[in-house]
């Protein structure tokens, strides 16, 4: 369809650790159709202009969480952001903010992965349970207490949105705390006291100054800001209540 062959300018933040001192912008003129996502724009550049352009992607349907980038300065999944919405203006894509750039649009997520491990993102049962005791029973209310926080796809857009994480990369950050909260709120789990050590730690929830942008950019409506702020209250309660009944993380 020749009439649909509009051309959009895509400005890409390029960085090659082997040859560049610092990142620089390069502009590509990309023909696009109405159904093309920003991710497909990047793929077009890789296929037709520069095969060395590096970026992560997998599912193309906003569930794998791989293709996050800054699109005109806003953290977004590039697979669910469409070129047509920016045309005829130029569109700028950059690696997710607040993370070190590994190459082009790929960032170093190892810090995030470590944080994810540190919060023990799995059910730690309240007491040992044998198979013949049968399955866990959970009421809809108990289920509702945590279900929202299970929707996280680890895309880390919330980290790219969080200036406090940018200023202090040790901050455990929105997604990891949302997941921590998810397990704490699960009626089958009994490790909230263990996790409290991290919640109340130097790198814990009190790094958050309630900017709230993490929840704004979350593509899955997890509301990580809510998880972080609820845990500020929990940490404060834990701190003061230990004088009444010493137990758990604040012993």
């Amino acid at each position: 369809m020749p009439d649909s062959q509009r051309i959009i300018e895509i400005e890409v933040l390029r960085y090659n650790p082997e040859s560049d001192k610092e990142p620089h912008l390069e502009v590509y003129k990309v023909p696009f159709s109405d159904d093309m996502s920003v991710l497909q724009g990047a793929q077009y550049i890789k296929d037709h202009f520069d095969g060395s352009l590096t970026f992560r992607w997998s599912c193309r349907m906003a569930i794998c969480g791989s293709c996050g980038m800054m699109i005109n300065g806003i953290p977004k999944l590039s697979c669910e952001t469409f070129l047509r919405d920016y045309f005829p203006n130029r569109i700028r894509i950059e690696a997710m903010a607040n993370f070190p750039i590994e190459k082009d649009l790929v960032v170093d997520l190892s810090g995030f992965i470590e944080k994810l491990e540190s919060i023990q993102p799995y059910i730690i049962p309240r007491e040992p349970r044998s198979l013949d005791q049968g399955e866990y029973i959970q009421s809809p209310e108990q289920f509702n207490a945590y279900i929202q926080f299970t929707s996280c796809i680890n895309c880390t857009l919330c980290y790219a949105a969080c200036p406090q994480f940018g200023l202090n990369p040790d901050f455990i950050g929105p997604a990891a705390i949302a997941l921590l909260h998810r397990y704490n709120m699960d009626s089958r789990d009994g490790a909230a006291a263990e996790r409290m050590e991290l919640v109340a730690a130097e790198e814990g929830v009190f790094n958050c100054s309630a900017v709230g942008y993490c929840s704004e950019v979350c593509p899955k409506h997890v509301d990580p800001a809510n998880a972080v702020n609820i845990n500020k209250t929990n940490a404060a309660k834990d701190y003061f209540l230990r004088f009444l009944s010493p137990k758990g993380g604040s012993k």
Partner: protein
Amino acid sequence: MSKRRPYVRSMDGWWKKNPFYVEYMIHESTALFVAAYAFTLLVGLVRLGQGEVAWNGWLEAMKSPLSLICHVVFLLAIMYHTYTWFKIMPITLPPIIVGGKKVGPEVITGSGLLAAVVASVFMLGLVWRIAQ
């Protein structure tokens, strides 16, 4: 040997890079106006304790054009602070369940703003009666 050389971008001027952050800085800085107004009232209290002459001097100072302009600025800043305070309130609260359903963010923000308006009108009425 590893060719890795991860590049860390500077955070200088981070709050200017996104309108969301600019608004955040504005609403956070309006807290300074809340403090300034509280300080103004505190000075009044101290002057009251120093006797009638001091107190009347403070009252006179409050009537000066500069003071009136400052109070209008305080009022506007504090109103904006109040608005944004309740706007972010939903993210700071645990879920509130009423009749088996989670109360929506707009209800929490709306209730907070309503409480602020009711409290302000009550205070205004009270002070008005005292001043009669």
